[in-house]
């Protein structure tokens, strides 16, 4: 029993152990230099990531509250990977920060919450995971301790998420009231299209929509993203969203199958609104973080197009796209993070003439943005093409046309940044950045991922094989 428990909860236990190590380090009161601490933590995170690839467990625990299999392990590996990259990228920011262990304790707690959420087989378990992954995040938003806008971001985050959690919980209770169960398997058998269940489905979708910042549940995103430290922003927009999308795929595709028609229509509407609104607002942004925030809203709208496919191709292209999204978005955030940590500059005007002083960083950012815009042969193109292709299988061409139109609009604003960096003159450009080797490695990995994941078909094939 114990060995089974240890084995099945391997991924969660690894994170817990790291959290405890960090707690002891903090309590040990010996002041460790921030640099050494960061190196140590990053080594732990690398070990944690590597461990995820061996001895992949499959099975259930706690009377079916918790389940794991190869697909879930892969998803957790993606999240581990994203966290590691963000950790490497924030080296320049954290090395001057006094509270490094606390930062990681909070960060890893949220990661633990996401793992539970992914592995949950019961709405209650899911809710616990969701809260664990949300509340510490609000504290993280406040981690630029002396910046008022950082506190403001944290406050807005906690208020908005409390509101959305309340409604989500209301939805869960209604569902329990009408079916008498919270277990995913039994829920599938009990669901039918009655009005109460549709209503609770809407509340659940609103709760999910809040976390992935789908329109109209997205309003908190811009302020929180802008106010938070870049590392937290990228964590919110990549890892946190990715986790929820994983859950959405498994819940919608496996549990809510009896009400598939209803959620199809809802996701369709939300997807259209999200793409259009996200793009229109992204067009006007001047702050790079805010710009990426809105562009990532539009990306989520795109992911939802793939979700509407309701086929194995749909779910595998969504998961595949999230991997690519991790690479592309973290590539972009990596550059912004380093620039912001060293120079404090964050607006698009600051990036004019960036190529003159930092050609390499410019290329990293340009490749990431091109990938986000979906230009072949970068990974983003393949991701989007598969999403569209899967979506087209359902035969709803109007959705495909809207999505494709939005791809063109998004190209326009991504090009705006690229033009500013390569072509515009600037009397006071960002000086030559000398960052630590760790962020450089992280960016290198992202660029490598962008270049390879698309052209090599292995990644998609593997994901697809897990879903069959």
């Amino acid at each position, binding site marked *: 029993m114990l060995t089974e428990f240890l084995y099945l909860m391997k991924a969660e236990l690894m994170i817990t152990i790291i959290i405890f190590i960090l707690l002891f380090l903090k309590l040990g009161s010996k002041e460790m230099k921030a640099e050494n601490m960061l190196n140590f933590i990053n080594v732990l995170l690398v070990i944690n990531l590597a461990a995820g690839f061996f001895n992949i467990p499959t099975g259930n625990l706690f009377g079916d509250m918790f389940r794991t299999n190869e697909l879930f392990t892969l998803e957790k590996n993606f999240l581990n990977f994203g966290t590691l990259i963000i950790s490497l990228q924030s080296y320049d920011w954290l090395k001057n920060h006094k509270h490094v262990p606390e930062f990681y304790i909070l960060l890893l707690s949220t990661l633990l919450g996401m793992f539970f959420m992914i592995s949950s087989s019961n709405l209650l378990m899911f809710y616990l995971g969701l809260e664990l992954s949300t509340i510490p995040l609000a504290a993280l938003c406040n981690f630029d301790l002396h910046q008022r806008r950082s506190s403001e971001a944290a406050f807005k985050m906690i208020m908005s998420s409390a509101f959305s959690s309340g409604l989500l919980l209301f939805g869960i209770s209604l569902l329990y009231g009408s079916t008498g169960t919270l277990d995913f398997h039994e829920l599938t058998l009990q669901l039918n299209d009655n009005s109460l269940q549709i209503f609770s489905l809407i509340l659940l*979708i609103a709760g999910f929509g809040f976390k992935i910042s789908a329109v109209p549940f997205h309003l908190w995103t811009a302020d929180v993203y802008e106010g938070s430290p870049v590392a937290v922003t990228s964590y919110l927009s990549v890892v946190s969203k990715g986790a929820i999308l994983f859950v959405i795929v498994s819940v919608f595709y496996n549990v809510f199958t009896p009400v598939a028609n209803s959620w199809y229509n809802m996701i369709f509407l939300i997807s259209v609104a999200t793409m259009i609104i996200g793009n229109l607002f992204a067009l006007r942004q001047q702050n790079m973080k805010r710009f990426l925030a809105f562009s990532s809203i539009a990306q989520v709208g795109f992911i939802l197009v793939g979700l509407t496919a309701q086929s194995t*191709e749909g779910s595998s292209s969504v998961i595949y796209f999230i991997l690519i999204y991790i690479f592309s978005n973290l590539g972009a955030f990596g550059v912004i993070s380093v620039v912001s940590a060293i120079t404090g500059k964050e607006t698009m005007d600051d990036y004019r003439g960036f190529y003159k002083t930092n050609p390499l960083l410019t290329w990293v950012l340009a490749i990431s943005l091109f990938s986000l815009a979906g230009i072949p042969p970068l990974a983003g193109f393949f991701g989007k*093409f598969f999403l569209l292709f899967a979506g087209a299988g359902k035969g709803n061409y109007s959705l495909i046309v809207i999505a494709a139109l939005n791809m063109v609009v998004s190209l326009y604003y991504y090009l705006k940044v690229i033009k500013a960096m390569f072509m515009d003159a600037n009397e006071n450009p960002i000086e030559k950045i000398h960052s630590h080797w760790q962020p450089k490695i992280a960016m290198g990995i992202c660029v490598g991922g962008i270049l390879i994941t698309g052209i090599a078909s292995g990644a998609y094939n593997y994901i697809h094989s897990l879903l069959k």
Partner: protein
Amino acid sequence: MNYSSYIALIPLLPLASFILLGLFGRKYLKELSGIIGCTVLLISTVLSLYAAYNYFFIGGKVNGVYPTLTAVKYTWLQFLPSLAIDMGIILDPISVMMIVVVSFVSLMVHIYSLGYMKGEERFGTYYSFLSLFTFSMLGLVLASNIFQIYIFWELVGISSYLLIGFYYDRPSAVAASKKAFVVTRFADLGFLIGILILGFQAQTLDFNTLIQRLTDTQSPQLLAIASTSFLGVSLLTWALTLVFVGGAGKSAMFPLHIWLPDAMEGPTPVSALIHAATMVVAGVYLVARLFPVFHINGASLHVVTWVGAISAFLAAVIACTQTDIKRVLAYSTMSQIGYMMFSLGVSGWGGETGLGYTGSMFHLFTHAFFKSLLFLCAGAVIHIARSNEMKDMGGLRRFMPITHITFLIACLAIAGVPPFAGFFSKEEILFAAWQNNQVIYVIGLVTSGITAFYMFRLYFSIFWNKEKELYDFHGEGTFSMKLPLIILGIGTALVGFIPFSNFISADRKGLPSELHLTFSIVPVTFAIIGIFIAYSLYFKQSDRAQKLSDTLGGLYRSTYRKFYIDEIYLFVTRKIIFNLVGRPAAWIDRNIVDGTMNGIAWTTGKISVLIKGVQSGRVQSYALYFFGGIVVLVLIFLYLWK
């Protein structure tokens, strides 16, 4: 014949050169970059010619038709159980013809650029971009399935973007590159949706299988796609028209042509390669590639015909009024591509009726020679005159004899004067139009007269007109610049004699090559009249041309302004889209999302400055919108959509 041993090298060599020059060109290789680029391309060209020789003469016909060979093929991804995405290389008459054209013209441009771009700071970068373009274009023509062609299609767009914007310190070049990218990308959207429809309906992305399934009247796929309709038009027509929209964007067909004249901001050799001979004919190639499917769907073929004819005529008229020599050439390119398009449109399948297909491909082939020659000559002229404007030129024949003679040959070719290349291909096109649709024939005929007029207007204005003295004249250009002119000049004079129709025809059987001499009298007469008018107006400096344009007044002005098409686009985007979509979005952004600090201070005046930022009331309004979203969903799904 086994091609797999070397055929992949033809595109891969330029790719290798791109990577090498891209990484080391600027810092280490510098001047050497040009030599490397040229050498690599020379090998590619030789291999292409060798492949063509093998295909047409060694392999030859199998059972009376030229076969479609798949030289390389592997399954890249099994997307659906019934739908695999392959990567491969297809060899058939048109792809073999295209690799010869692309690699040859690219080689000429590479050599020419050795002299033209000499001393340029980013010489290595320039050659790496050229290599990237050549790789993408070769990949495009060799692609064996529609997904692969789309990838290369976009790559060609990117390399064109990079090359148009090569002089990135010029704002006009930057704007032009962006315009070209966004406009063609907009058209590609149609292409993408067309691919999705075709792919799903035919259950394949492979060209061979696709064509086979969609032309066989018994196949379930054809029945399904032809019987399903959307907005009253069959899905097949939709798919093909959308694919054609993509092609029209790349090939600068009306009304998606607005990017091409601006693209002339790039270096002139680039215009010769990308915007005259190769990339812009990709749309024609795409239609030709899917021609068997287009052929069975009359409606979409009509669209091709009329878009082609309108573009041909309109561009020729606009070209008459332009004063920038590169822009004249740009519009003439658009006009000639219009010829190729409508020629495909009027083509039938086998025998004499398939002459349009042959003529279109033949014109693509000859056009590549004379148009790249014209652009390279224009480059030399601009080099010497230090201006793009016709009025700054005149009398240059004494200074640049080689450019003068080759330019004249190219002008005669494009005007359709025998025995130069353009005559033969144009004659086939007009004959095909005559047989099939006489309205199109008349448009083509008039256009060919106008073409002769504006080309000779250009020729006389540059090389004759007024006598001019050049004080700081350093010779006509380096040997590397003259050599391509001479080679292309000889090509332009001779390629018309190739019995092209023996090799390329819609049904692959080949046609006997024959001239319809009596038929040719009318087109040639039109061309000569055009030349004569140009001679009388522009040979000597006079005010006759000015008087004429004054008489025509408004008509001339509206033509000069390119029929206000750019302005219409601007009106639609600036006024309509910006006001109807952008403004409200901005308003919401300002008032709801951003919510000015001042407004909040006013409502919550009593609370301290610190709290003002936090308790802005905005979180509450966020919650309100959140709740509003739920209410809307509930209303829709519990009451309306039930």
